[in-house]
């Protein structure tokens, strides 16, 4: 199975074995996952929209109402993570709750809970961004890149 000199199998061997192993592996239920994510994500958006409309009816302007709703969603996700329900919710709803801001909130709170035992500075402080870090790095980097591009083509005044 392995290349004699290194013990690492050749690429085509590895590919063939992966294909062979795959034939024994049940397929993830992609369609059902998509439907569930669609419904859960949709419900979440309806709930957010409902809250925003309520807030606007109570006299908030649109910008403030949107900010309040976002904060409420983040808090709700954090609370659900804290009491250990968010991961069960995700098992069902998948991308429906991971893609919205709720998923981001979860990815911050989960490491904070997990690394509390290692102390506030090197535990929580050091590991807080272990999941969200990559998203922030590349999110902010691409935002800066796009901003410069926008400025270069004369979009900014």
């Amino acid at each position, binding site marked *: *199975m392995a290349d004699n000199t290194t013990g690492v*199998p050749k690429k085509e061997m590895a590919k063939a074995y*992966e294909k062979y192993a795959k034939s024994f592996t049940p397929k*993830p239920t992609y369609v059902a996952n998509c439907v569930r994510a669609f419904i859960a994500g949709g419900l979440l958006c309806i709930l957010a929209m409902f809250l925003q409309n309520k807030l606007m009816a109570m006299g908030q302007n649109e910008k403030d109402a949107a900010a309040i709703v976002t904060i409420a969603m983040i808090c709700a996700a954090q609370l659900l993570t804290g009491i250990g329900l968010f*991961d069960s919710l995700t098992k069902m709803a998948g991308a429906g709750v991971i893609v919205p801001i709720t998923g981001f909130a979860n990815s911050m709170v989960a490491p904070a809970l997990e690394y509390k035992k290692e102390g506030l500075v090197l535990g929580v402080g050091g590991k807080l961004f272990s999941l969200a870090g990559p998203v922030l790095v590349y999110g902010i980097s691409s935002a800066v890149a796009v901003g410069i591009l926008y400025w270069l083509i004369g979009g900014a005044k």
Partner: protein
Amino acid sequence: MKNKLGKQTLVFRNKPVITGECAVVGTREGSGPMKEYFDVILDDDTYGEKTWEKAESMMLKNAILTAIRKAGLEKSNIDVMLTGDLLNQLMSSSFTARDVSIPFIGLYGACSTMTQSMLMASVFVDGGFAEHAVCGASSHYCTAERQFRMPLEHGNQRPPSAQWTATASGAAVISRQPCTANNILIPAPKEIFVTYATIGKIIDTGMKDANQMGAAMAPAAVDTILNHFEDTGMTPADYDVILTGDLGYIGKEIALDLFADAGIDSAKLGVRYDDCGTMLYYREKEDVHGGGSGCGCSASIYTGYLFRKMRAGEFKRALIVSTGAMLSTISPFQGESIPGIAHAVTLETS
């Protein structure tokens, strides 16, 4: 060499004997199909400790001390402790060893640790380097998850092939002579002897998906078992039961298919062969996807279920083959594939 057969198999001519054993498992494992066989089932997976790592150490400690007590011995009678776990720098084992103050050698074999430690303990005892050796292994879902995967409360969907690290620990005392302590029971339980062990080679299939451990380890298990048969001249029919460690549902199917390719009739093998990863949980109810894994998975099934059945005379000869996926926490990020390993140990009753 007088104590070696073929290329990889050791013969224990002095027949080291298993004098005591204990299985400690978590709540989920303790409500599975094997629940009646375990010595201790935790009410709470923290085991009253402040950290998961402490809880795992406590489980191993409890398993070791109970096994020693069951052998009718004291801590001070034990010449060497050979244990291992999945954590970096063998945290659970080393901290257990700190508490029990028995001369200690830590072993890392990923999930193959239980047979690895039994093999080593038997070598010590058979070679006359120890009168009594204690071996064991532990794993904890919460410690393994945070080290190898994601924080516990992180929301994600596990693929169907992902396996569930067992919160479990098993330990056994291997001695030069049977202890008389057990013989007051009537009828006297059978003695379990360690007669052969086959040291496995790393087999790397090139699999890189850390959610496909069973598939990555199955060829190693098959390789070790086939070499065992070749070295000893035995066949599957010589065994009443053959157990692999934690291949899980997918790995077990692959192993059976590979055995069929090697000319071992799967109908003949099927009745004897099972995998601890498929035995520990109810597949549908527990939502464990690919089955159980972790050092504790095979350790608790051997020391809980198998040894009990053997002592009761239901199985006369057993081949146990714990399987390990020797990946590290950084190797997948460096694009490395998963090296698989498996060690086999033959157990016989008097």
